[in-house]
């Protein structure tokens, strides 16, 4: 079947390039990227303020689109670092057209710059993209000299700010770890299965004040996968379909020092986008998988996703709302705090959400779960993406 919904839905409206007969250009890769972006936007009669989608695949650091967006001072709601070598940019255009046809971004910028020839002449390597990029990463220059313990130090800064602004307490954060561990006691595959108390959390060694060891996720091995197909086709497959009802994404920074407000994450954008697409509200969520890299992560995300008002996360979690039997069963696998955390937990959020909606979770099954939320957080509260999933009954 040919999907024709994208047909004619998007158009190229501005172009620019930078070349020279000598084969060499002056300036760093970053300055060249900025130059062609400015010229192409001008060609289209747009400005950088119009741009809400960014497509790029080269970086001296670890996250191409985050670092370029940070450099440009923009906070995209559609982001794509797809890296396939020479065909990357055709794929970026395809993705941009798809996103635009669905209304997920309005103005997409696809950009590329590299200076392998002049870099080679300077003795700093030829085609290896790392060598042709503009020197040290911002983190190496502006954050690492202060030797913040990472990643916990970045989250500790956010926790300190939340405590200062809203009176959130270490005990309230600890309750998140306690409830998550209670779920893990019902998961025989969890790394940590013994119950803990708030006092246990507070007595565990400080990692970066105000975060204790038991506020922090595990370091484990792990792997996961998710397969998707069309809902129509899914209905003829082996398991009951789990429908993607809504999605949303927003990234706000790469370094914690560039996070605009340490008490509000991009989930305040991604969550409402996902809920709007799904036609649902937080009250409709039967079970939530909310990235628990640290207890403060969960608290911030509960607020930003709309489960409670900003600043009231501490009081919201204090009564055990996330625990078995609570009003918002969350991180039912035991989460990154107790189940597993190989470095990136997002895949496991999706796996657990699907298992809950299929009724496959045994002792920890949330009865009658029809709608699940899985929310991923990347970087240091940097990149947020919300997925709302539902059973066939929610179609």
């Amino acid at each position, binding site marked *: 079947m040919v999907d024709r919904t994208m047909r004619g839905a998007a158009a190229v409206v501005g172009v620019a390039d930078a070349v020279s007969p000598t084969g060499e250009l002056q300036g760093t890769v970053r300055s060249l990227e900025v130059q062609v972006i400015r010229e192409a936007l001008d060609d289209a009669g747009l400005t950088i303020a119009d741009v809400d989608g960014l497509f790029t695949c080269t970086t001296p650091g670890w996250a191409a689109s985050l670092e370029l967006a940070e450099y440009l001072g923009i906070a995209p709601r559609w982001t794509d670092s797809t890296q396939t070598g020479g065909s990357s940019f055709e794929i970026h255009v395809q993705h941009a057209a798809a996103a635009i046809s669905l209304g997920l971004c309005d103005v997409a910028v696809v950009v590329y710059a590299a200076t392998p020839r002049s870099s080679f002449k300077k003795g700093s390597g030829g085609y290896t993209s790392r060598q042709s990029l*503009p020197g040290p990463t911002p983190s190496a220059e502006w954050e690492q*000299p202060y*030797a913040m313990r990472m990643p916990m*130090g970045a989250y500790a800064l956010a926790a300190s700010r939340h405590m200062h602004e809203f009176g959130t307490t270490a005990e309230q954060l600890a309750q998140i770890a306690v409830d998550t561990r209670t779920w893990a006691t019902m998961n025989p595959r969890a790394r940590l299965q013994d119950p803990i108390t708030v006092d246990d959390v507070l007595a565990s060694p400080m990692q970066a*004040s*105000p975060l204790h060891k038991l506020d922090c996720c595990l370091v484990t091995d792990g792997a996961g996968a998710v397969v998707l197909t069309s809902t129509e086709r899914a209905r003829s497959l082996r398991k009951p379909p789990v429908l993607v009802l809504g999605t949303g994404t927003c990234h706000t920074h790469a370094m914690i*020092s560039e996070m605009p407000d340490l008490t509000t994450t991009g989930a305040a954008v991604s969550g409402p986008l996902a809920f709007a697409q799904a036609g649902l509200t937080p009250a409709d969520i039967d079970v939530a998988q909310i990235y628990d890299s640290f207890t403060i992560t969960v608290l911030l995300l509960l607020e930003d996703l709309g489960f409670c008002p900003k600043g009231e996360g501490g009081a919201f979690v204090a009564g055990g709302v996330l625990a078995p039997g609570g009003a918002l069963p969350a991180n039912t696998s035991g989460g990154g705090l107790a189940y597993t955390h190989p470095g990136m937990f997002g895949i496991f959020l999706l796996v657990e959400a699907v298992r809950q909606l299929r009724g496959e979770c045994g002792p920890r099954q949330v009865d009658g779960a029809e709608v699940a939320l899985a929310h991923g957080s990347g970087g240091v509260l940097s990149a947020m993406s919300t997925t709302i999933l539902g059973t066939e009954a929610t179609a």
Partner: protein
Amino acid sequence: MTERLVIPAPEGAPDRQPPPVSPAAGPFWEATRSCSLVIQWCRSCEQAIHFPREACPSCLGADLEFRPAAGTGTVYAMSEMPAPGNAGMQGRAPYVVALVDLPEGVRMLTGIVRADGGLGAAEVAVGDAVRVAWEPLADGRHLPVFVRA
């Protein structure tokens, strides 16, 4: 101009590792040789910029310059590290990493130290006023840190 406060490394601790210098940040680091804090500004839209860039993150303009900063600030967020974050911090723990808001309108990740050279958070808290101080680097530059004002 307030007195320039230089905080030597604690007894037995090495100087901090000198950070790399990016293409846009040369003037920032050069100024630290004389313990001066300068901040990048966009002359097109009159926005202060930190970290220094080759284009303004507000308007993408490239007409940029560095101007002296007041050298004061307010603690926006902070965390005390009970153990070194890297091998170069042996002998310095516990120490404080913080985000400090400058009156120029930018926020810096930095350290907060005690003017008496002692270790730890001491009497500083989120919301407190601080002023810049300087830790010597082996290459003649200084690393900007802050002390309680």
